[in-house]
Structures are given as structure tokens and as C-alpha cells.
């Protein structure tokens, strides 16, 4: 679950494809004519038509003393360069980018007119004039970027002439090279030049405004920063670095929204003409130099250009100023980096509307959320609500101790009601992917009146006993058809603390949720682990409905897919073990052929059980990368599995000793899917980290992502890569990933965990109406369609309310007055924090004031939720005890 197997290459690919096509007029290292005779030339030398046929020529860089392609005579005070090039004015951008590597000073003429004077004094310049400063070190090799307006160019042939001045004829080096290219109209490109302030102090608030004087700021091309590959290295360490640049737009050429791509490590605020337009990976509220980003950006996420849409309305005709403040995760962080581009947004893709959810009553019926970077809150579709069930650090109701961290597999096991599995009464098993590990076993009930889940009991699963030696890193797992939980130890260790001959950790362990004890047994009757299923970095297990086959995969180690055929149905303690071998292997993460073979892996002796993976590897199993989950589709019966490191979900048809129809089902890090969102059609890349999988009974595949943007995706059963049917269900709060989704048998409710959210996330209001706080604590929640979870209306906040209906006093000692006007069928219900109804009263007609006495109820609660309903009116108020 945890290992971040990221595909940098694919992300860079996406990033690159975002660059607008660009025309290079002449490139670096192109050919120049030059004069190196060491004398003053006539003033006309720079004019078009001046005869340069006798001049030498050679490719850049030209000069001496530093690496050059063409060596010229030395020593010189000044060298003269020129070249002709042809342009079609209509193809040029409004401003053109001229990049010049110069050691030391230059004056550039276009068609005889001076357009650039850089590192040279003002006034008249002769052969003898020396540059203003010495250029040395890294500055000798950078291409200084200058913007040249299109109006300076002529249609057809143009002549550029550059005089290159030394710092002194005694200087050991002199060098020049240059390029000229278009820049995207109405924006700027990756790697473009920025002015920056890296002094490590808070700037005045006006720094971001157009007109603020940045002439004393340094400048350099992106990426800028330190600790990661950059073009321009800035001072370190910093909490915040400030960047700004001016660029020109023609409003009539802009698309309705502009695409801003920012590579940021770690958090940014972007201002356009002084107005904040983006806040990404940063907390809400006031931001200063000291403010740190919300989360650490690392791995491949450091190199992604995050996409933001900026409405056209934010731009002005002509020159605009973009200002970016880049915040570190901590001054001690080793890296800080930023680069950005701006361009017209691609035209929206027309995709047919989603018609899969006509009745709207299934949990999979929702409108995709709008693609987003992780924010400070959980984002789920507007059709859904969520309720916090338990979180890290909560005290157990029985047996002492408290809920562990890193909540992972979250399995609902239905209790039987009259022989039927209940969707309102069950066990909730939550793995803790920690070392030492653990499993929380809770008992939960759905209260039909409040439409809320209640936790009636919670305790730690008992892994004590010398025959077990506890468990570690309980990662994912599975719920068996016979109503037990299998928890998966993701780490393998070799030690054998209890001397039973088995390595201590790296096994499946079966748990009876009713007793919260281990139910798998050793041959001698003591509690044991499921030795014959083998030792590995176990991640997950799925058992078929018949209770005869189990499938699982290894995350790390062999990265292979395994199958286990039980000797006796519904008994995992003995069986034969197989590893999946694709007949022709994988190329670039894609199966070369559609067939595969299951190869038997020895698993009957302790020595073999303790060494499953090296045996499977020698026997030729196919190595994927990070098998995080295997599931069986209820629709087509195929076996689906994720390979996180390959960013793909695969599927195959199991034929017993062989398999067929092996293919990629969904994904590919750079695969972009179109989504119908409340904001219209949006695109989003699948990204990294497909992890836990779950099917609902309709065959929708819910894919939980660890890495990338930590989304929950939902893929329709009739999805194909050619005809994609992918929706976006959720975005996790900053720093966290979703883990271990399971559903109640009626599929009204889904339970999952939010693993390791950052401590900077925001509080939220869940379906109970209470403010919940799980900052820095892994949490387990239930999701459902709005109508199935919580009472109507948005609790805690006053929503769709009639303003003049007020409950007072609040806080109260018990008696409150409600100015109910003349509402009809007025009803007041009070709930305590457990969601229980503690007071309910109806009034068929009301006076202007209705009095309610809650004195008794406040004896037992410090806070009550009042739900006030009447014909055409509903309001919820949080009432506090004085």
C-alpha cells in the first residue's frame, strides 16, 4: 500500500504534451558569419545588405577560451557576428524570444536597429569598449532571454547582427551563441524567464501588484529553485520564494479560460495582476513568508505541471503581471522548485452525457467531482454524504488501548438477521498498516430514525499468544464469503521469535469478527497464521463466492499474482499455491499476448512456506510492479488486479491451469479520461498509484489511488480503453490516500479509510451535523447517497434557511424560543451527539413565538442538534448548553 512506485517518465510525457507547438526561427548552435580581425568596423556593418561574403562562418557557440564549436582569433576586444533568416510575419508571435549566451557584453541589432544592449555601458560603443562586468562561472553558459516585439521584424529576410565585447583583451575567454523562437501568444512557455526574490524575508503586500518595482530582482529561466534539477539556482534555505513576470496578451485571442501549468514543490499562491487566482497545497487564511505548504510534495509529483484554469476575465489587454509565491514544506526541506507556463486552453472535448444512472438510487450514481489537487477537505460528489465512524487515537470501548494509525483495509462483515446478511448491523474491521500492526474490530448499527451509523463497540483484535507473535503492517485484506476477515501482513521478517520454525511476519491471518480473535489454526490446534498461502509482502486477498479459490498479489518482493486452490471449501488452512506467468511476458507494462499459465509453487514444507517468493520467482512467475489488489467481477467473473508501479488495472479469465483474455482494463499514468462534472466536461489523467479495488454488485470497479492525486475512481463494467467510462468519485484531504473500500450487502453504504491525512487539514461537518476533526489522524468513514445518510439539510451550517427563524438564546440553559412566524405543521426534533432523538414535538399551528423546554435533555448533553421542519421549510441549529 505504502510504497510509492511512481512512473516519472509517464508524467513527464503528460507534461510535455501540454507544451504548445513552437516555431524556432534559428536554433542554438546554428551557423553565423563572423569578423574576428580585431579592428573597428564601419558603422554600416550591421545593416541589411552590408557585404559579408568575405566573412568567415561557423556554428555556435563561437569564441575562444571556453568550449566552443567554432574557434575564432584571439585576443579580441570585440567580435562581430551576423546572419540572415527568413520569417513569415503572420507566423510570428506577438513577442519573439531571443536567447543569447554571451561572455561578456552584447549589442544586438535587427535590420540595423539596436534591439538589445546587455552588460554594456550606455552611449557610443567602439571596438575598444569593454563590457560592464565580467561574466564568469555558470553565467557564461546560460542563454539570457530577451523579448523582441514582432513589429521589429520584416516580412521575408531579416538580418540579426551581434557585437560581442570582452571584459578586456587580456581576458582568457570570449563566447557567443544565440537562438530565436516564437513564444506562445497570450502566455508564456515552460522554462521561460522569471524575476525572483530569494532574500528570505517577507515582502510588502504590494509585491504582487502590477507596477511594483522589480528592477533590482534577479532573473533566470525556469525551473528555478534548489535541491532538484533547476536551470536557475536560487538562495537556500527558504520558507518562501517570490517570482514574477510580465507578459502580453491580446484579449480577443484568449480562450474563455486559460490553462496555467505550474510545477511546484511545495505550495503556491498565484496572483494575476495582483489578484489571487490559485492557491494550491497551501492553507486557507493569511499567508506570510513563514507559512508552510500543506503537504510535502515529493517523488514524481515534484515534476508534474499542475493544471489550473484562469478565467479570461482576470486578464487585461496588453501587459499582465503574474506573481507566484512558492512556499516550502519547511525551511529544512532539501528542495524547492517552480516553473510554469500559460496558454490558451484546449477546446473542450464533446463526450456523450452519462446515462448510466437514470434512477439515481444506486451508490454509483453521481456526477464526477471536478478534478483537483488535494485540498484541506474530503471532496465527494454532491449526491453523497459521509459520516466519520472512528479515527486513530479513539479509545476502544472494550479491552483498553486505542485505535491504531494508518487505517487500511476497511471491511464490513454483515451480521446475520434471520439468516440474512444485514446491511444495518455488522462488524467493521479496520487494519492498521503500522509496525507493530493491529486490527480494530468495531460493531456498528444503522439507526433508521437518524439515518446515522452508531458505533456500539470497538476493541483491538487479539493477536497475543506465543503461537502468533502478533502481526505487523496489516495492509489490505479481504472479507470471506463465510464471514471472516483475512488481514494481510505487508512486511516479511525472517526472525522466529517464538521458535516455531515459521518466520514471524509476512502472512495472512484469519479473524473471527464476533470474537475479535484469530480463527486460523495450527495443526496442533493453537492459533496460527495461514502458512500454506505463503509468506510475502501480502497486500490483499479475494475469495470466490464458492469458497474454493483465493487470489492475491505481492506488493514488493516478487510483484506477482498468486492463486490458492483450497483443499476443502471455506478453509484457507490448506491448499495448492500457483503463481501467474504471462506466456509472453510484459512490454512497457502491456501483456505481449493474451494467454497465461498458473505455475505451481511448493508450499507444503516449512522451508518452502518460509520462502514462497524466491521459489515463485525461480519458477518463472511474471513480475508486475506493486500488485495492490485482486478482485473478481460479479458481472463477467474475470480476475482484476492492479499494478501500482505500472499505473494500470489488468484483467484475465481464469481457466484453471491457464488463463486467457489477459489485457489492460483501465489506466496508464498518462491516459486522460473525460469526465462530466458539475462544471462541465473536464479531463484528468489517470496518474499514478492505482491501489485498492472493489466491485459493487453492478460491476462498477471502484479504484482507490495511492499517489497521483489520491482520488477514488469508478469504472463502469462496459468500460474499454477505446470507449472509456470513467468517473471521479472523491479527492482525499491533503497528505492522505483512500484505503480499503467495502460495501454493505445492499450497496447503500460504502466504508473506507482516509490514511495518514496531514495535520494541516481542515475540520469538516459530516452527516451527523457535527464538526469533525481528524487532522493528522487516519480516519474511517462511511459514504452513501444523501437520502440514505443523515437527516436532510446541511447540519451545523444554516442552509436554505429562512433567516428570520431564529432559536434563542443560544447557548441556553434549557428553554428556548423559536420565532416561528405562522408556519404550518411545525415540528421540532432534538438529537444528542450520538444521533439519538431526545426530544420531539409537533405543532399544527404556531404563534409568532414557539417555546421549547429542553432543560431535561441538557442534563445529559452539552450540545443538541435541533431540526426544525414545517411546510416548505427546514432548518438545523446547533444548540449549546450555557
Amino acid at each position, binding site marked *: 500500500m505504502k510504497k510509492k512506485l511512481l512512473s516519472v517518465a509517464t508524467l513527464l510525457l503528460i507534461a510535455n504534451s501540454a507544451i504548445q507547438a513552437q516555431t524556432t526561427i534559428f536554433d542554438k548552435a546554428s551557423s553565423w558569419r563572423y569578423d574576428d580581425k580585431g579592428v573597428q568596423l564601419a558603422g554600416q556593418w550591421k545593416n541589411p545588405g552590408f557585404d559579408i561574403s568575405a566573412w568567415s562562418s561557423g556554428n555556435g557557440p563561437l569564441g575562444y577560451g571556453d568550449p566552443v564549436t567554432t574557434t575564432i582569433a584571439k585576443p579580441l576586444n570585440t567580435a562581430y557576428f551576423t546572419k540572415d533568416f527568413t520569417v513569415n510575419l503572420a507566423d510570428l508571435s506577438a513577442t519573439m524570444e531571443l536567447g543569447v549566451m554571451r561572455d561578456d557584453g552584447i549589442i544586438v541589432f535587427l535590420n540595423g536597429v539596436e534591439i538589445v544592449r546587455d552588460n554594456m555601458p550606455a552611449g557610443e560603443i567602439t571596438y575598444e569598449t569593454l563590457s560592464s562586468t565580467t561574466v564568469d562561472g555558470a553565467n557564461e553558459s546560460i542563454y539570457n532571454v530577451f523579448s523582441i516585439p514582432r513589429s521589429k521584424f520584416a516580412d521575408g529576410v531579416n538580418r540579426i547582427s551581434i557585437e560581442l565585447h570582452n571584459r578586456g583583451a587580456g581576458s582568457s575567454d570570449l563566447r557567443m551563441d544565440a537562438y530565436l523562437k516564437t513564444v506562445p501568444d497570450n502566455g508564456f512557455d515552460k522554462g521561460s524567464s522569471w524575476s525572483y526574490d530569494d532574500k528570505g524575508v517577507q515582502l510588502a503586500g504590494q509585491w504582487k501588484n502590477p507596477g511594483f518595482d522589480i528592477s533590482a530582482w534577479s532573473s533566470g529561466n525556469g525551473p528555478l529553485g534548489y535541491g532538484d534539477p533547476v536551470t536557475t539556482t536560487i538562495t537556500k534555505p527558504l520558507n518562501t520564494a517570490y517570482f514574477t513576470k510580465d507578459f502580453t496578451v491580446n484579449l480577443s485571442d484568449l480562450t474563455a479560460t486559460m490553462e496555467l501549468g505550474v510545477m511546484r514543490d511545495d505550495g503556491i499562491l498565484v496572483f494575476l495582476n495582483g489578484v489571487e487566482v490559485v492557491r494550491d497545497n497551501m492553507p486557507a487564511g493569511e499567508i506570510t513568508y513563514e507559512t508552510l505548504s500543506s503537504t510535502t510534495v515529493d517523488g514524481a509529483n515534484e515534476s508534474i505541471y499542475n493544471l489550473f484554469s484562469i478565467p479570461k476575465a482576470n486578464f487585461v489587454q496588453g501587459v499582465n503581471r503574474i506573481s507566484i509565491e512558492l512556499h516550502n514544506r519547511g525551511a529544512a526541506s532539501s528542495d524547492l522548485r517552480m516553473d510554469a507556463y500559460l496558454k490558451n486552453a484546449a477546446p473542450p472535448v464533446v463526450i456523450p452525457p452519462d446515462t448510466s444512472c437514470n434512477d439515481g438510487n444506486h451508490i454509483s450514481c453521481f456526477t464526477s467531482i471536478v478534478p483537483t489537487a488535494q485540498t484541506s477537505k474530503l471532496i465527494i460528489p454532491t449526491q453523497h454524504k459521509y459520516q466519520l465512524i472512528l479515527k486513530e487515537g479513539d479509545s476502544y470501548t472494550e479491552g483498553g488501548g486505542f485505535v491504531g494509525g494508518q487505517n487500511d483495509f476497511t471491511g464490513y462483515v454483515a451480521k446475520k438477521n434471520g439468516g440474512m446478511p444485514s446491511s444495518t448491523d455488522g462488524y467493521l474491521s479496520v487494519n492498521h498498516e503500522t509496525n507493530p500492526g493491529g486490527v480494530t474490530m468495531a460493531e456498528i448499527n444503522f439507526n433508521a430514525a437518524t439515518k446515522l451509523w452508531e458505533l456500539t463497540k470497538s476493541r483491538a483484535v487479539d493477536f497475543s499468544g506465543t503461537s502468533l507473535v502478533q502481526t505487523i503492517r496489516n495492509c489490505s485484506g479481504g472479507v470471506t464469503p463465510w464471514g471472516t476477515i483475512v488481514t494481510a501482513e505487508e512486511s516479511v521478517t525472517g526472525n522466529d521469535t517464538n521458535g516455531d520454525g515459521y518466520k514471524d511476519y509476512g502472512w495472512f491471518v484469519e479473524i473471527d469478527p464476533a470474537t475479535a480473535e484469530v480463527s486460523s489454526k495450527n495443526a496442533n490446534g493453537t492459533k496460527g497464521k495461514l502458512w500454506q498461502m505463503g509468506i510475502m509482502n501480502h497486500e490483499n486477498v479475494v475469495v470466490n463466492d464458492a469458497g474454493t479459490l483465493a487470489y492475491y498479489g505481492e506488493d514488493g518482493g516478487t510483484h506477482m499474482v498468486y492463486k490458492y486452490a483450497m483443499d476443502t471449501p471455506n478453509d484457507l488452512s490448506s491448499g495448492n499455491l500457483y503463481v501467474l506467468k504471462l506466456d509472453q511476458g510484459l512490454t512497457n507494462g502491456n501483456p505481449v499476448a493474451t494467454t497465461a499459465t498458473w505455475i505451481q509453487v511448493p508450499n507444503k514444507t516449512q522451508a518452502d512456506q518460509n520462502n514462497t517468493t524466491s521459489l515463485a520467482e525461480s519458477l518463472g512467475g511474471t513480475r508486475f510492479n506493486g500488485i495492490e489488489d485482486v478482485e473478481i467481477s460479479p458481472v463477467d467473473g474475470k480476475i482484476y488486479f492492479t499494478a501500482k508501479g505500472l499505473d494500470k488495472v489488468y484483467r484475465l479469465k481464469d481457466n484453471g491451469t491457464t488463463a486467457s483474455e489477459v489485457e489492460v482494463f483501465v489506466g496508464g499514468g498518462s491516459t486522460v479520461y473525460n469526465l462530466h462534472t458539475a462544471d462541465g466536461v473536464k479531463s484528468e489523467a489517470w496518474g499514478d498509484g492505482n491501489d485498492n479495488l472493489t466491485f459493487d454488485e453492478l460491476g462498477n470497479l471502484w479504484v482507490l489511488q495511492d499517489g497521483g492525486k489520491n482520488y477514488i475512481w469508478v469504472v463502469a463494467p462496459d468500460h474499454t480503453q477505446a470507449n472509456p467510462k470513467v468517473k471521479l468519485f472523491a479527492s482525499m484531504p491533503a497528505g492522505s490516500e483512500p484505503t480499503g473500500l467495502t460495501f454493505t450487502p445492499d450497496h447503500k453504504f460504502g466504508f473506507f479509510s482516509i490514511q495518514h491525512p496531514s495535520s494541516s487539514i481542515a475540520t469538516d461537518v459530516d452527516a451527523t451535523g457535527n464538526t469533525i476533526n481528524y487532522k*493528522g489522524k487516519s480516519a474511517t468513514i462511511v459514504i452513501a447517497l444523501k437520502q440514505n445518510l443523515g437527516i436532510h439539510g446541511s447540519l451545523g451550517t444554516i442552509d436554505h434557511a429562512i433567516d428570520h427563524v431564529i432559536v434563542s438564546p443560544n447557548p441556553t440553559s434549557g428553554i428556548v424560543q423559536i420565532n416561528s412566524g405562522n408556519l404550518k405543521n411545525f415540528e421540532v426534533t432534538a438529537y444528542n451527539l450520538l444521533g439519538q432523538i431526545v426530544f420531539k414535538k409537533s405543532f399544527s399551528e404556531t404563534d409568532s413565538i414557539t417555546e421549547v423546554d429542553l432543560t431535561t435533555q441538557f442534563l445529559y448533553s452539552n450540545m443538541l442538534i435541533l431540526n426544525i421542519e414545517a411546510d416548505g421549510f427546514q432548518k438545523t441549529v446547533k444548540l449549546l448548553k450555557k
Partner: protein
Amino acid sequence: MKKILLLIVFVLFLSNAKAQIDPVKYPTYTDIDAAILSKKTVYSMSFRDKGLYNLPADLIKLDSLFFLNLMANHLEKMDKVIFSLRELEILNVNENGIKFIPDGIGELKKLKTLSMNLNSLTAVNSEISKLQNLKVVHFDSNNLSVFPEALLDIPSLEEINLHSNQISYVSDRLDKIKNLLYLNLSANQINDLGEVKLPKQIKYLELQKNSIVKIPEAVFQSGNMEFLNVSDNAITQISPKIRALKNVVSMNLANNRLRDLPEDIQYLKKLKTLILVGNPMTKETIANLRDLMPQTIIYF
């Protein structure tokens, strides 16, 4: 006398209980503030995946900790505060960017398990040999180029895992680590183990994915060996002395250059699993071996 015995039993019980890290008896805190504020003694702390560059200084106050997990952070060094935790028995610093082990490591005298997988170690500080209670060390996936000599002076070690380093030289005095049961040197750059002497107790030996041409004679003197993996090497023949591995249950010789095996292999009566895939053996050879060893399942 009785009392002393009782005390001994009690102490044994305690240490056993601790080793098991019962999450209820020894809940693992993940938040330093919660741990500091706790009215109960804090024994176990995990900062896994917290994005830390340095450890909180307050950690020094948790001087009863016997378990500390620092896995998957951004640590580039082992902060001093770690070495003030003298009760530590289990220390996990996997998946960081640690380049060296400071001298302070020698202070953690009660340490039993040290896991430093997936770091950037090029050497193991010899101070580690002061840890005479150490049973398990994991230095997988570092940049070690020789077998850490200091480990030879820790006879209590039962498990050494050094896979996926660049080790090309292994001391021939491994037998000094008398209690060693599990040794994993796979995926290194060993082509010759010289005259290596193995500890008598050794039970599992993993040498796969090296460039070993010849299995050293001493390996065949390990009468307690149950599992031997020498797959993915360049071994051309096996000595008839292999018959001395009388307790071996599973042997993986896959992906070598073996054309045949000595007939003495038939005396390995406990051998249940023999993997020979990826060797240039004929079907006849395999058939003969199967006849010779009816009690063994041969994978080819």
C-alpha cells in the same frame, strides 16, 4: 531460591511480552504531543510516513520507549535524540536517506532489532558491535560493498539480511556469529566466497542473484541447513559433499549452468523441493534424478 526463580520467570515473561508488542498493552503513539501528554508510560512510537526531515526534540522525554519506527521519512542522518532512548529494543529507520550510522548507536545496548533497509549506507559503524543483545539486522538495499566486519563480533545475531547491496567481499569468519540462523546475501556482487566458514546453526542461506561460480565446501558442512537458495548464479557443478546437508528440505538451484547433479544427492532424504529450472539439463537427466529421489519434487 524460589523467589529468584520466580523473578527470573517474571523477567522472562516481561521481555517476551515486550517482544510481541501487544498493541493494547503497548499502544503505539503516532503523535508526539499526544505521547508527551499521555499519563501512561509510552513504550512504542511510530512516525512512519510523517514527512519528517528531523525528529522532534521532545522525543528525549520518552525515555521508556522500546519500539521506535521512523520508516519512510526524509531523514538524512540519525538524530542524536535516538541514542538517548536507552530502552530501545526495536528501531526501524527503513526508507530514509541515511548515509552513515553515528557512534551513538553503541549506546543502544538493549537493541534487539535494527532495520535500516532502503537507505544510503556505504558502511556500518563498528560501534554497532557494542550491541551484544542484537538479534536481527536488516541493511537491505543500501550501498554496502563489503560484509560489515562489525557484525562478526555480535554472536547473538540470529538474522542478517543484506540483500540488494553491492557486496563483493564476505569475511571467511562468519562462523564467529555463533547464533546465526538466517543469512541473506542475495542480489549482491559476490563471485567467490573463498574459504568462508559458516556458523554451525545456520538454517536458511540465501545467496541467489550473485555471480557465484562454485559453492564453497563449508556450505556443505552445515548439517542444520534446511533451506538453500543459490539460484541465478553461474554455478557449473555441485560437489558430492552435498550429501552432508542431511537436514535440507528445500533447495533452489534454478538458473545456473548445471548439466547434472552428483548421485550423492540421493542421500538427502529430507529434501522435498528441488528447483532446477533454467539449467542446461536434458530431460533424461531430470528423469534419472526423479528416479533417484522419489521423495523429492523436482521442478524443471
